[in-house]
């Protein structure tokens, strides 16, 4: 989830400080293809008469196995140019991958930012499909950049994180996906490498796809840097059920900014429960109730009033949630 600062701004508010989640329901109805590995059988029956006596027979059965077509589609989600605040470490650029083949297939991903290759560690599956990066929920693709296998017609929503070191100026985030079995000109065959040992055949997409989203990185008037620490019941940092996540929101305003009645809000991530009494600002506890102090928990988000800010300021808000 993305923390948001609201309030009145003397200068332009930086778009990236606001939630920019666009969830496109790209449920384009796929023509139901014959599944890879399926067997198609055909038998004819014959009816006839000999000497006035009716009889019937069946033909032999012919069986043909369906080969696997390798096809993939990739689509940039969201519209227009993504604005990134320099230093923002958790900005995910959403893409939608569709297995448009007829078999179970994994896809190898690779991404570039401004032409420079990004490591596989910048690639995530947007598990809750909210278009935003949340390390406690979203799944790392991992070294090698290969997705899990998905069924025919299934989709994966993906996120590419732009590392701070790739945020110079403007550029394009480009994501490439290709079938793990192989790519090539349509009709290229990989003998025996399809589902159930059938042949895999490259389809009309060449089993590869690329999608791009332009971005600009600028110094924000104000930014929120969010980080988190996970402590599991067993003492490890695995984001498992029962683990506690401590979120730290660092609100930084620069000299150019003047905010009035600024308020920081951050929704509690889906699948987690707010830990009562865990909200604090600059180390001082804030009560959860809507009362005299500046913080509260409204049942779904933490809200902290930051008041008027007219000089470079850093405020640190922390709170905790438990993974359900």
């Amino acid at each position, binding site marked *: 989830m993305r923390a948001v600062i609201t309030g009145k701004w003397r200068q332009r508010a930086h778009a990236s400080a606001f939630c920019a989640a666009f969830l496109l329901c790209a449920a384009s109805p796929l*023509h*139901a*293809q*014959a599944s890879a*590995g*399926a*067997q*198609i*059988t*055909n*038998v*004819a*029956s*014959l*009816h*006839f*008469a*000999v*000497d006035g006596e*009716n*009889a*019937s*027979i*069946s*033909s*032999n*059965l*012919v*069986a*043909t*196995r*369906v*080969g*696997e*077509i390798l096809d993939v589609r990739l689509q940039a989600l969201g519209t227009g140019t993504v604005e990134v605040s320099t230093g923002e470490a958790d900005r995910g650029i959403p893409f939608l991958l569709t297995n448009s083949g*007829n*078999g*179970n*297939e*994994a896809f190898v991903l690779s991404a570039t930012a401004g032409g420079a290759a990004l490591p596989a560690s910048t690639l995530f599956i947007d598990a809750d499909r909210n278009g935003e990066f949340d390390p406690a929920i979203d799944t790392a693709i991992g070294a090698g950049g290969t997705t899990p*296998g998905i069924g025919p017609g299934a989709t994966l929503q993906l996120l590419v994180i732009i590392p701070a070191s790739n945020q110079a100026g403007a550029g394009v985030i480009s994501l490439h996906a290709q*079938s*793990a*079995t192989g790519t090539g000109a349509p009709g290229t065959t990989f003998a*025996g*490498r*399809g*589902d*159930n*040992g*059938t*042949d*895999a*055949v490259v*389809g009309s997409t060449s089993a590869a796809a690329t999608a791009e989203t332009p971005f600009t990185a600028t110094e924000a008037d104000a930014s929120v840097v969010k980080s988190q620490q996970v402590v599991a019941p067993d003492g490890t940092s695995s984001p498992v059920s029962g683990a506690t996540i401590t979120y730290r929101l660092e609100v930084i305003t620069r000299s150019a900014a003047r905010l009035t009645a600024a308020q920081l809000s951050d929704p509690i991530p889906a699948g987690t429960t707010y830990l009562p009494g865990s909200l604090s600002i600059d180390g001082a506890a804030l009560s959860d109730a809507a009362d005299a102090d500046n913080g509260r928990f409204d049942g779904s988000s933490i809200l902290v009033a930051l008041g008027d800010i007219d000089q470079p300021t850093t405020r640190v808000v922390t709170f905790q949630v438990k993974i359900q």
Partner: protein
Amino acid sequence: MRFPIGLCTALAALTATAPAFGAGLTVTNTVFSQQRSTAPDGTTKIALTPATRVTPGDRVVYQLAYRNGGAQPIEGLTLNNPLPDALTYRGPAQGSPAPEVSVDGKTYGPLATLKVRGADGAWHAARPEDVTHVRWRIANALPAGAAGKVAFEAVLK
């Protein structure tokens, strides 16, 4: 991608060599895949090869070759072929008489005479993809020793 449970690594079309018998009547069902290629002179060449593997969009031809191996003539011969679900009917294969078709397995006739009920509840003219059965009725008696072939073309969904 490959799955380890590869029991069926042999994917050749199982064109059974043992035909079915009945009162001297034998029938052999064979599936071919159809390759279209453009010849240097611009004409389209259609080649039929045994269907070793098919992928969605491929055109296949099912051929029924029948023969009266008995001593008596065979009368009223009807060949009925329910279409496998994964196939969409396209039409008679080149050189074959056109079958009667059905969209319900009960009423047969030329496609143009058939109707199907759409999702909106209204009846509309049947299209090739609505066909569920094909049938040939051989009008004349098949004399002893005589043979024939019928075939239809379909596309893998």
